[in-house]
C-alpha cells in the first residue's frame, strides 16, 4: 500500500475534528514566528538597541537642560519607537518570501487575513512590546514624572500595535522590490504621523494639565480602524507581490 493511501486513512479521523480551525491557524503562525524570532535573537535585539541609542542621541544633540528635555522627551521617545518598529518591518514577510513558505501560506486553506494577523501580532510582541516596556525607563532620562511615564507607556501600548499594523501593509507592498527598506520608510512614515501626534500629544496634554483622555481615545480609534482594514489590505498586497 502506498504512503499516500496509508496517510489518508490515518488522518481521516483527525480531519473530522476540524473545529476552531480559524483560530488555530492564527495561533500556530504566531507561535511559529515567535519561535523563529527566538532563534534569531540578534536581529530582534538590534532594533531595541537602536531605540536606546536614538533616544540618547537627541539630548546629546540638543543639550541636557532638564526643562528642555522634559519638553522634547515624549516626542523623542515616540519618534524612536516609530523608527525602531520600522527597522523590524522588513522581517515580517521577507524571510518567508525568500524560502517559499509565504507562498505556501497564501495557498493554505486557512484564511489568509488570519495568518497575516498572526504574523502582525508576532511582530508586535517582538518589536513593539519591548519598546512599551523600555520607554518609561528611558523616560527617566528626560526627567519625566511618573504620571507622564504612565501615559507614555499606555500610549505606546495602544499605538505600537497600530504601527505594526500599518507597517504590515507597507512591508507586503514592498516585498522583493528594489530599494525595499528606504522605499518602505517613505511609504509608511507619513501614515505613522497621526499615531505620533496623538501619542506624544497625550503625554504633553498630561504635562500641561489638560488630561490625556482625548488623545488616548483617538489612539484607540486608530487601533480599531487599523484592526478592521489592515488584514484585508495586507492580504491584497501579498497576493499582488506574489504574482
Amino acid at each position, binding site marked *: 500500500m*502506498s*504512503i*499516500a*493511501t*496509508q*496517510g*489518508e486513512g*490515518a*488522518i481521516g479521523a*483527525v*480531519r473530522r475534528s*476540524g473545529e476552531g*480551525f480559524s483560530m*488555530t*491557524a492564527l495561533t*500556530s*503562525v504566531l*507561535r*511559529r514566528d515567535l*519561535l*523563529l524570532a527566538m*532563534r*534569531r535573537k540578534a536581529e530582534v535585539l538590534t532594533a531595541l538597541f537602536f531605540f536606546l541609542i536614538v533616544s540618547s542621541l537627541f539630548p546629546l544633540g540638543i543639550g541636557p537642560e532638564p526643562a528642555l528635555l522634559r519638553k522634547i522627551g515624549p516626542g523623542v521617545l515616540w519618534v524612536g519607537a516609530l523608527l525602531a518598529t520600522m527597522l523590524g518591518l522588513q522581517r515580517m514577510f521577507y524571510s*518567508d518570501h*525568500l*524560502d*517559499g*513558505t509565504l*507562498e*505556501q*501560506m*497564501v*495557498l*493554505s*486553506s*486557512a*484564511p489568509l487575513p488570519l*495568518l497575516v494577523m498572526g504574523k502582525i501580532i508576532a511582530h508586535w510582541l517582538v518589536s513593539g512590546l519591548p519598546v512599551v516596556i523600555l520607554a518609561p525607563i528611558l523616560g527617566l532620562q528626560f526627567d519625566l514624572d511618573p504620571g507622564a511615564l504612565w501615559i507614555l507607556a499606555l500610549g505606546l501600548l495602544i499605538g505600537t500595535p497600530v504601527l505594526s499594523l500599518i507597517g504590515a501593509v507597507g512591508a507586503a507592498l514592498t516585498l522583493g522590490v528594489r530599494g525595499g527598506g528606504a522605499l518602505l520608510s517613505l511609504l509608511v512614515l507619513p501614515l505613522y504621523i497621526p499615531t505620533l501626534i496623538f501619542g506624544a500629544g497625550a503625554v504633553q496634554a498630561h504635562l500641561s494639565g489638560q488630561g490625556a483622555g482625548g488623545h488616548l481615545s483617538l489612539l484607540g480609534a486608530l487601533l480599531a480602524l487599523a484592526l478592521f482594514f489592515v488584514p484585508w489590505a495586507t492580504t491584497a498586497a501579498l497576493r499582488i507581490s*506574489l*504574482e
Partner: protein
Amino acid sequence: MPGMLTAHRLTCVRGTRPLFSGVEFSVGPGNWAQIRGPNGVGKTSLLRILAGLAQPEEGEVRWNGEKIGSEEFRRELMYLGHRAAVKDDLTALENLTFSAEMDGVPIAREQAEDALARFGLAGREDLPVRFLSAGQKRRVLLARTVTRPARLWILDEPFTALDVKAVDFVSNLVADHVKAGGIAVLTSHQAIPLPPGQVVDL
C-alpha cells in the same frame, strides 16, 4: 467526487510581451501532465496560474467545473515551487507540525515523526532544516502529503538538485499518487521517470 483540472484559453503577459496564449488542456484523476517548453517560455508562470498564485491576462482555470481559488480548492492542492518552502531555522518536525496546524489539521508529535520516518528522515527530525541536503529538504516538504492528502499536485521542477536516489523517491511518490487517483502537473528539464502522461507544449 471526481477531481478535474481544466485550463481554458490561458494567456499570460510578462511586462508588455505575451508569454503564451490560448493554452487549453484538462487533466483528470489518475492522470498526470507535463508542461514542456524551452527556457523562459513561461512554464513556471503557467504552473503558478494553475495553482492560483497568479492571475492570467485572459482565460481561466477550473477545478471540478468551478473557478479555482476557493478554500475547497486550496485544500486539495499541493504546490511545490522552485524554493524549498521549509523554514531553515526550524527542525523538520517543527516544520511539519506547523504546516499541519496552519492547514487546520493539527497532528500529534508521533504522527509527524512517523510521517518523517516514512520519508527516510528518521533520526534527523530534530535538526534545523538548514543542515539537511536539498533532497532531504524536499522530503520534509513532501511529508506533508501524509498529514494532508491533496488530490492535485503541481510541481515545478521537482527533480532539480536531487541525487539519483532522491529522484527515484520523488518519482515513486508521484507515480503512487497518480495511481491512487490523484492528479499531477509538472515541469522538468530532466527526463521524467514516470509512465507516459499528457504533454502540453508551450
